[in-house]
Each structure stands twice: as C-alpha cells, then as structure tokens.
C-alpha cells in the first residue's frame, strides 16, 4: 500500500469515527449519571437511520433530508425520555445490572417494531442534497459528505464540552457522575436530571444514526453491531469522558480502516488477511487498553456508588421444603422420558433447559457471590463446545473423552482470561470479559482450516445408546444435577464464603489475610470449567456447533437468565434459565414477531419481580412467615 493510499484510508476512518462517537458519547453520559448500561442505545441509533430515511424519501429534497435529520434527533430524544419515564424509572432501585434486563427487552421490542414498520429489506437513503459531490484528495475522490462527517464530530464534541463545563445542566451532570447521592442530597431534582440526560443521550444516538442515512443502508442488524462498537469506544476512552470517547472512536475507526487498507500480507511463513481482522481488532485494542490502563485512556476510577438495592441476605442451607421440592422436581424429570414418548419435542426442550441451567448457574457463581459481572460467558461455552466437537472431528475420540475434555479446555481459557479480568471491576470487568468472548468468537470464525469457519463443525452426534433423545436427556440431567450441586457445595464451603467476602468488602477481606484477586480468579476458572460442560453437551445435543451459537447474544441470554431468576438467590439461576429457555423455545415457534413477544414478557417480569422471580417469591414467603 502506498503512503497516499494509507493517508486516504485514514481520512475514511475519521468519517466513520464520527458515527461511533455519537453513539458512544450518549451511552457514556447515561451510564455516568444513572449507572445504567443501556443496551438499547444501539437500537436508538438504528431508529435514527430508519426515521431519517422516511423523512428523506417521503418529504424529499433538502428539507426532507436536512430537516429530517433535525426532526429525527428530536424524535429519538423524545423516545429516550419516554423510555426513561415509563420504564427505567421503575427499576432504579432494583439490584445492580437489573436495569440491563429492561434495556435488553427494549432491544427486542424495538427491533421487531422496526421490522413491522419498515420491513426486512435494507433501505438506502438518498445522497445528501448539497453534498453530493466529491473533492480530490491525494489523487482520490473523497465524498464531500464524508468531509462533512469528519468536521461535525469534533464540532459536537466541542459543543458538548462547553455544555458540560459551563452550564448549570453540565455541572449537575458532572456532579451526578461523581456522586449522585450527594447531588440528590443537595436538593437537585433527580427525576428531571435523569430524564434529560437520557433524552440527550438518545438524541445524540438518533443524530448519529440519522447522519448515516446517506452513507449506509438502514439495516435490522445495526442495533447489536452499534452497541458492541459503542461499548468498546466508551471503555477504551474511559467511562464518562467525552473527549476520551472521541479519541477512542478515532483510534478504533483508524485501526479498522487500516486493517482493511493493508489487506492480505505475505509474511513468508504464511499469509495474513488483515481485512478479516477487523472483526477482532477493536476488541484486541480494548483488551490491551484495559490491561494497561484499567479505567480507559482518559477515564478515572468510577465514583463510589452506594448500592441502592437491598443488601443480600446471608445464605442458609436448603430448608426441608426446598429439599422436598428439589427431589420432587428431580423425580418428575427422571420420569419425563416415559411421559414424552408421544411427544419427542418435550425431551429436546428438556435438554435445552438443562444445558441453560448449567450455563446460568455457572455464570451466577461469579456474578452473584463473586460480584464479577461477566458479559462474555459465551466464551467458555464456546471453548467447551468447540473443544469437544474438534476432538471428535479431528481425532475421532469417543464422546466420553470429548465431554471430559470440554471443561478442561474451558478451564484453560478461563484461567487465562480470568487472570486479566479480576484485575478490573465493575463495568470495566464486564467489558473485558466481553472482549475476550469476542476474541474467541472471531478466532473460531476465522480459523477456517481448524474450525470450519462460519459453517462450524458438523456431524458431532452421540454414539449409541446416547443417540436416543431419552438417553441423552438422562445424561444431561445427571451432569446438570452434579454441576448444580457441586457449585452449591462450593458456595457453602470456605472458598465460596471467601469469594463473597471479597465482594462485600475487599478491604476487610485483605485485612484478614484473604488474597481476594486469587480467590476471584479461581472462582472465575471454576465457573468457566462448569460452563464448558454445558458447551460440550450442547455440541452433542445439536450434532453441530457454529460460531453464531457462541456469539454475544448467548452471553446476554446468560445475563438475562441470572437476573430474571434473581441474582441474590441460589436457586434463582435455575428458575431463570428454565423460564427463559422455555420461553425462547416455545414463543419463538408461535409468531414471526417472537423477539417483541419475548421482550414484552421480559418487561412484564421485570416490572413484576424487580428482585428476580425467586427473589420475589422468597420475600413473599418471608412476609407470610412473619405474620402470626
């Protein structure tokens, strides 16, 4: 690549950076003030593109395009305000991260709403009136619209900077980011502040999305791609720093642009296709930044948040009633193959649910008692699944060996990734785990000669007698019971207590001789290994494994299961996984708009059970017990 081509590619990167910046900065502002990780932020960005498309095509002309962008910004801002008032305000006092569930449900609902309103086709808007041409730069044509994008990013950055530095609103936002309890103690109306910040963040996302209308087609997959990119940008730049967000957006966009520019390079010992690296490049950048600068490039340690949720109750051994319930459930499940002879689907559902239970229980192990909110648990599921499947494919090893190897492969991955992850905390830990999961995903996606790339590994069927659904169901049941009881045992043992001690007060735990990082690291590894079992079982249950089954959505599914059941209870993940997996398997079959339906169900559950399903029932139980 020539030097001028390189520079041109860099210019291209700058115009992409603007879009990244607009979505990331809103996410960062909202997180700073409300501590909500708004997964639906990518959906707002996507809505921006679609709404602007409608303005530009229905009204048309300069008014439709430029006026449409302004109107879209206001509309998306208003939608943001509405979401805050109608939904998020009701769940602020729920345990940490619970709001994430609500915003995840919104992702599903908004995606289907867009599908319903605009249809499944990609929609390419008109070119921007007045900026249709291009100018010659370095002997190439650069569209003037891209030039406009390059300029508008820094302009908005400066405007935001002045708003935050000079206005009363800006001072309140900065103050709330540092210590929101103090701000509310000083008599600031928090409701208004939260709503306006949410509206501002949403409007910025809408603006960013609207600007894309002349560049890229509106597409239904934009929401999750955009939110993934935005997370990376926010974390690399440092939570709450708008300059950091711009800096990070530029770095990420440039790294991607340059990877595409370099293309295929022959190193002598082999060729590397750099343009394929774009999938993983941003996550590599994030992992490196987080390891070197744990709070991002321009970030500072997060302000202390005094938890608003009820503190957790001490854990107690199972009551006789709970034990009885467990035995009855187990009896029922053991008999299920007999009942299910007439409907084989029931057994498939049963296997899915049991695998989900192992997955969710292992995630809960580190999320709840360990306080480590992993957003990348799919990595260990994937390592287990691919570990088992590849042993069968390449070495033709029997299922027993492959299923034993699955947790070991996952354990190795968890030991490696966990060592870095436990050095961080809070949202930074969450993002680093997400980055590792993306790296695993990109690895299996691109290492085609080993993993089969996007086709995955097929033909991983269990041998006799496990080829019968009923027998495989029983195998899964046995392993699930062992996994759940083992993790439970660990939690009641000194190790589990030490993990909780480190979460409750790292200061006190260190002062009584507990090596908190080491305990959390080993906890992370245990959870990873158990999760690997779920992955191995999954591969044999489906007969195949492909990259899409271990994508970020599986990590999010895990979070949803744990939060839905109740993060502060030990049986929560079991109930949450059962409910979620059943809903997913049944609702999905009923309607084309299954996402919206699932989203609405999750929203209703979130409103009805702010402590999760089991959390809600156990407080009901306690209240009933307290009465004479």
């Amino acid at each position, binding site marked *: 690549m020539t030097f001028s081509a390189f520079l041109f590619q860099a210019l291209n990167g700058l115009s992409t950076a603007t879009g990244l910046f607009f979505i990331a900065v809103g996410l960062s502002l909202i997180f700073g003030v409300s501590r909500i990780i708004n997964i639906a932020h990518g959906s707002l960005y996507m809505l921006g593109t679609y709404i602007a498309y409608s303005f530009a095509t229905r009204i048309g002309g300069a008014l439709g395009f430029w006026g449409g962008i302004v109107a879209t910004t206001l509309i998306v801002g208003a939608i943001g305000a509405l979401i805050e008032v109608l939904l998020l305000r009701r769940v602020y006092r729920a345990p940490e991260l619970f709001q994430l569930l609500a915003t995840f449900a919104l992702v599903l609902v908004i995606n289907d709403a867009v599908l319903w309103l605009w249809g499944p086709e990609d929609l390419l808007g008109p070119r921007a009136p007045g900026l249709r041409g291009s100018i010659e730069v370095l002997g190439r044509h650069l569209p003037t619209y891209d030039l406009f994008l390059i300029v508008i990013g820094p302009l908005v950055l400066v405007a935001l900077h002045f708003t935050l530095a000079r206005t009363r609103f800006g001072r309140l936002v900065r103050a709330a980011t540092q210590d929101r309890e103090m701000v509310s103690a000083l008599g600031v109306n928090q409701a208004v502040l939260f709503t306006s910040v949410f509206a501002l963040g949403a409007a910025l996302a809408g603006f960013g999305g609207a600007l894309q209308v002349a560049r890229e087609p509106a597409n239904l997959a934009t929401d999750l791609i955009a939110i993934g990119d935005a997370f990376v940008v926010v974390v690399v730049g440092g939570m709450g720093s708008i300059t950091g967000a711009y800096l990070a957006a530029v770095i990420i966009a440039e790294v991607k642009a340059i990877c595409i520019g370099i293309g295929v390079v022959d190193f002598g010992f082999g060729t590397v296709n750099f343009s394929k690296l774009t999938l993983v490049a941003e996550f590599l950048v994030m992992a490196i930044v987080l390891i070197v600068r744990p709070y991002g490039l321009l970030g500072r340690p997060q302000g202390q948040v005094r938890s608003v949720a009820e*503190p957790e109750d001490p854990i107690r*051994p199972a009551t006789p009633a709970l034990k009885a319930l467990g035995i009855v459930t187990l009896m029922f499940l053991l008999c299920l193959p007999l009942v299910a002879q007439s409907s084989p689907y029931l057994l498939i559902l049963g296997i899915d649910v049991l695998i989900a239970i192992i997955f969710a229980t292992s995630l809960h192990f580190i999320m709840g008692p360990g306080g480590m909110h992993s957003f990348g648990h799919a990595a260990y599921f994937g390592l287990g699944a691919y570990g088992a499947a590849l042993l069968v494919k390449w070495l033709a090893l029997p299922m027993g060996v492959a299923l034993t190897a699955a947790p070991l492969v996952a354990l190795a991955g968890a030991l490696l990734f966990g060592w870095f992850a436990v050095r961080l905390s809070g949202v930074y830990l969450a993002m680093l785990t997400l980055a590792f999961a993306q790296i695993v995903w990109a690895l299996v996606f691109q290492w085609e000669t080993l993993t089969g790339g996007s086709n995955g590994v097929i033909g991983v069927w269990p041998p006799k007698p496990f080829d019968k659904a009923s027998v495989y169901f029983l195998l899964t049941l046995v392993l699930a019971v062992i996994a759940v009881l083992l993790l439970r045992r660990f939690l*009641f043992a*000194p*190790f589990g207590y030490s993990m909780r*001690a480190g979460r409750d007060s790292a200061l006190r735990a260190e002062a*009584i*001789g507990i090596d908190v990082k080491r305990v959390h690291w080993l906890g992370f590894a245990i959870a990873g290994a158990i999760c690997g079992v779920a992955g191995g079982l999954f591969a044999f249950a489906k007969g195949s494994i492909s990259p899409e089954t271990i994508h970020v959505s599986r990590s999010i599914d895990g979070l949803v299961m744990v939060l839905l059941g109740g993060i502060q209870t030990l049986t929560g993940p079991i109930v949450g996984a059962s409910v979620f997996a059943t809903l997913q398997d049944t609702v999905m079959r009923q309607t084309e708009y299954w996402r919206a339906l699932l989203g609405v169900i999750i929203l209703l559950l979130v409103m009805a059970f702010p402590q999760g399903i089991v959390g809600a029932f156990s407080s009901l139980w306690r209240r009933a017990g307290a009465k004479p």
Partner: protein
Amino acid sequence: MSVLAIRSLSKAFGGVRAVNDVTFEIERGEFLAMIGPNGAGKSTCFNMINGQLKPDSGQILFEGSDIAGLEPRAIWRFGVGRTFQVAATFSSMTVIENVQMALISHAGETYELWRAAAELHRDRALDLLSQVGMREAADRPSRELAYGDIKRIELAIALANQPRLLLMDEPTAGMAPRERNDLIALVKQLVVERGTSVLFTEHSMDVVFAFADRVIVLARGRLIADGDPAAIRNNVQVREVYFGTGKTFAGVPQ
C-alpha cells in the same frame, strides 16, 4: 524488645511530605495513642504500617522483621490485627460468619471447597463474640446491626488471629460519647488480658487521656512529642501546634 519499631518512616505525595522521618516504638502490652490535627499524617502513617501504602523510606519492624511495603494480608499473617475508621464487615453474612471468616483464613482453609464454612470454628467464634458482648446476635444478619455493634464485631474479627499488635484507626469515630468509652474500655480490658499492644488514632481527647498508656503527637508529618498523657498535656509545643489556646483541655478531668 519492642513489638513494633518505626524507624525514620517517610512518605510524600507530590510535594507534600505527609510523613517525614517519623520514629517511635511500641512496647509489649502498651496502649499507644497517636494524635494530631487533621492533615498531620496520622492516617498515612497508619496505612504504611498496615500495608495499604508503601513507604518512600524507613523501616517498620514488627518483632524484628521489616514489614514495610508488604501487602495487608501478609502483614496480618505476621500477627497484626486491625479495625477500620468506617467499620468494614461482610454485609451478606451473619455476625458469627464474619468472625468465622477470620478464623478460617487464619487456619489456612480459605481454598477449602468441600466442608461447610458455617460449621468451622463455630465454638471459637462464639467465644470471641461473648468477649465483645455480641454472643446473642451471633446468627443475625450483620447488616441489621447498629453501628456501635458493628464496631464490636470488627473487634472480634480483629482479635481472631490472636494478634500481638492491634491497629485501630479512629475506633470511636461515628459513635455516641457513652458508647465510645464502653468500646475503648472493652478494648483495653481484652488487650490487657492478652498482652496485646495497641496503636490507635483518636480525635476524642477524653478517650485518649483516660485510656492511653502513652501518647505520640504528629504535626505536619513530623513527630513532635512522645510521652505519657500527663507530659503531653503539659507539653508547650503540643499546645501550640495542636491545641492552640488549650481550651480543649478545659473539660478533661485532671
């Protein structure tokens, strides 16, 4: 031999010499108060001894071995217990489990995966709770307790590894006057029984003069006085830099 010997300890933050060439010792069984106005360097000094800060220079000899710069958990293993200015306990655990955690760690059972933690060292934990007067509350969730009681739990935790030295950073901060005296009297009684040495910082002068065997005074990072309470009370330099007009003493019974 003294239990703890601090030799020429120094720590600077940027241009500020928070602790500047401080030297003192604590004898076995001694109840030593460290006082000084805000910003005198008490907390910095304290945090170097307990391992939260690394000194720029100087030695911290605990029973002859230099513990300067070690991690807090390593210092604890040497036999140094501590309480915090803002009491820190494990809020998701019961009162007794909090104490059991310290006993489990002391016994080297932290990584144990099989036995139930709640059944380990229960008798010993109950014994410690009785000593601080909290046996009745053993099985209550610790987050339900009043702050004064949390302080007592912390004391039981701190005594669990039978420390030879107890570090208490403002043990009575945030407590009512009556509770303060009760707590310090309890601490004094427990450490006298065991022969434990105590180093504590304190803002409440009535507590200091009623209980301390000896008092050291820091001002602007330097040690300016070291002596028994009577001598400190009459020390002109201490009065000047710390007590100003000396009115602080008006209410203290002679």
